[in-house]
């Protein structure tokens, strides 16, 4: 029983990380239909910022964390300006491919100017300590990450439903030009979405780095691949969908790791993706997307 609870909590914290990443993808997608595969590299920017702080012998964890988050936000904003603005009006596929391109460029920039090998960053180890409650072992990081994800979800919901800028963010996803025709500075809307996305990447970066303790050019690729899947499963562009998809994926992944017999252990990822594919075949637009009948409209 304890074991089951233990693995359940593990699934929850896996899910929280995926949800945090998936939200970063979903906010950008919901506004401009862009699947930002370069999200992972924005996380890596945060990681390399920590390396830079370490090199400058700045160890104050608050500065390091803030620095990483700010760097990720700036990186996200910069990418919006440089790479994504030209494809703003394009279809999702164009955006997806652009993001792939950006991701490849950034990975190679890290490789060229820093190193292809992992670089250790130990300044955030202090965030991680064991907590034991009634025989259940938790890492403090898991708790922090889950809490952060919850706070982020609530804050985002409020922003998108209650503020004009939030409405504009949602409206821009369908008709960017028309948003401009209401007088809202569209560039601000996009900047805001990318800023939020960068913030989420920065937060995720803190947790990933605190856990891994090192950064390499591929730091973000795998987690973001999973987050991408989470988004699609939940219903792309739907923020609640991203959250649901994230937690679902966490649960599936832990279940596969734990339940597959050792002889099939190497197939964990295959089974995770297979389940995802089955979900999509069952609900082609993701679980939380409303069942829309295509008529003349939409």
């Amino acid at each position, binding site marked *: 029983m304890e074991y089951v609870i233990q693995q359940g909590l593990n699934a929850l914290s896996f899910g929280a990380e995926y949800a945090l990443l998936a939200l970063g993808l979903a906010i950008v997608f919901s506004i401009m239909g862009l699947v930002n595969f370069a999200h992972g590299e924005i996380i890596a920017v945060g990681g390399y910022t920590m390396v830079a702080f370490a090199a400058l012998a700045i160890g104050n964890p608050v500065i390091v964390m803030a620095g990483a988050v700010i760097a990720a936000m700036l990186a996200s904003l910069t990418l919006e300006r440089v790479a994504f603005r030209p494809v703003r009006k394009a279809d999702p596929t164009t955006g997806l491919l652009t993001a792939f391109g950006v991701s490849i460029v950034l990975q190679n920039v890290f490789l060229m100017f820093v190193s292809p090998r992992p670089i250790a960053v130990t300044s955030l180890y202090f965030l991680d300590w064991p907590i034991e409650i009634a025989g259940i072992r938790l890492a403090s990081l898991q708790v922090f990450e889950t809490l952060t994800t919850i706070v982020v979800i609530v804050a985002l919901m409020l922003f998108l439903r209650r503020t004009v800028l939030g409405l504009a963010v949602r409206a821009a996803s369908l008709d960017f030009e028309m948003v401009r025709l209401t007088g809202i500075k569209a560039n601000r809307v996009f900047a805001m979405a990318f800023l939020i996305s960068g913030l989420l990447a920065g937060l995720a970066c803190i947790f990933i780095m605190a856990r891994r303790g090192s950064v390499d050019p591929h730091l973000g690729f795998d987690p973001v691949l999973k987050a991408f899947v989470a988004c699609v499963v939940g219903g792309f562009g739907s923020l609640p969908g991203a959250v649901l998809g994230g937690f679902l994926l966490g649960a599936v992944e832990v279940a596969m790791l734990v339940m597959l017999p050792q002889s099939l252990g190497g197939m964990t990822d295959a089974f995770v993706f297979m389940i995802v594919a089955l979900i999509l075949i069952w609900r082609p637009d993701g679980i939380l997307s409303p069942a829309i*009948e*295509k*008529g*003349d*409209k939409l």
Partner: protein
Amino acid sequence: MLVLNDISKQFGGVRAVSNVSFEVAAGEVRGLIGPNGAGKTTLINLISGLLTPTSGTMSLEGDILDGAGAAARTRKGIARTFQNLRIFENLSVGQNIEVAQITARSEGHEDSAAIAEAFERFDLAGRLRMPANALSYGHLRRLEIVRALALNPKVLMLDEPAAGMNEQETEELAGALDWVKTRFGCATLVIDHDLKFIMTLCDRITVLNMGAVIAEGTPREITTNQDVIDAYLGEDHSNAA
């Protein structure tokens, strides 16, 4: 030809079409009018198979259509245009029409002579090699109609074909559609808000309101029907068109 039997469609809480029954005969032009949101487009979506009715059945020449998808129904001879244009913008004008011709050919009822004539009638003859997205709105509407005709359909449904056209063009369109009626002999269902257009074109008119049929008859009968005046035309309808 086309028989609708007690068709209803529910969207969540909205009953967009409610217990509609009517028939359209071959060669007949049937007008479908009604206030905005009356369910006209929804009805066409139901007939063309893009939406599934909540209840009711329909048939084409005695052949039950229920359960057949949009493509299958088109192949059986139901063609339509769209209120919001659905042009294949990366194909040329000619290829847009070819998409439909291919379907007609594979079903063995292509009529290439009639289509060639339709190009002229709808002012597309010189434009076949243009990319479709270079046409103006009015021509795009014409393209949609010709594309539907290329299917050589038994039932042709036009959703606001005159929208965005001026009176002159509307008249031309009415003339062209008259030609369609004689040349193709299909059962035609036309939605439009341009009463003059509807009145000159249609043999019979069905009026929808809030999803339900509130009147049915010849143009004359309709314009004097008090229910229709209340729900749709308003008092001073002679000025409307």
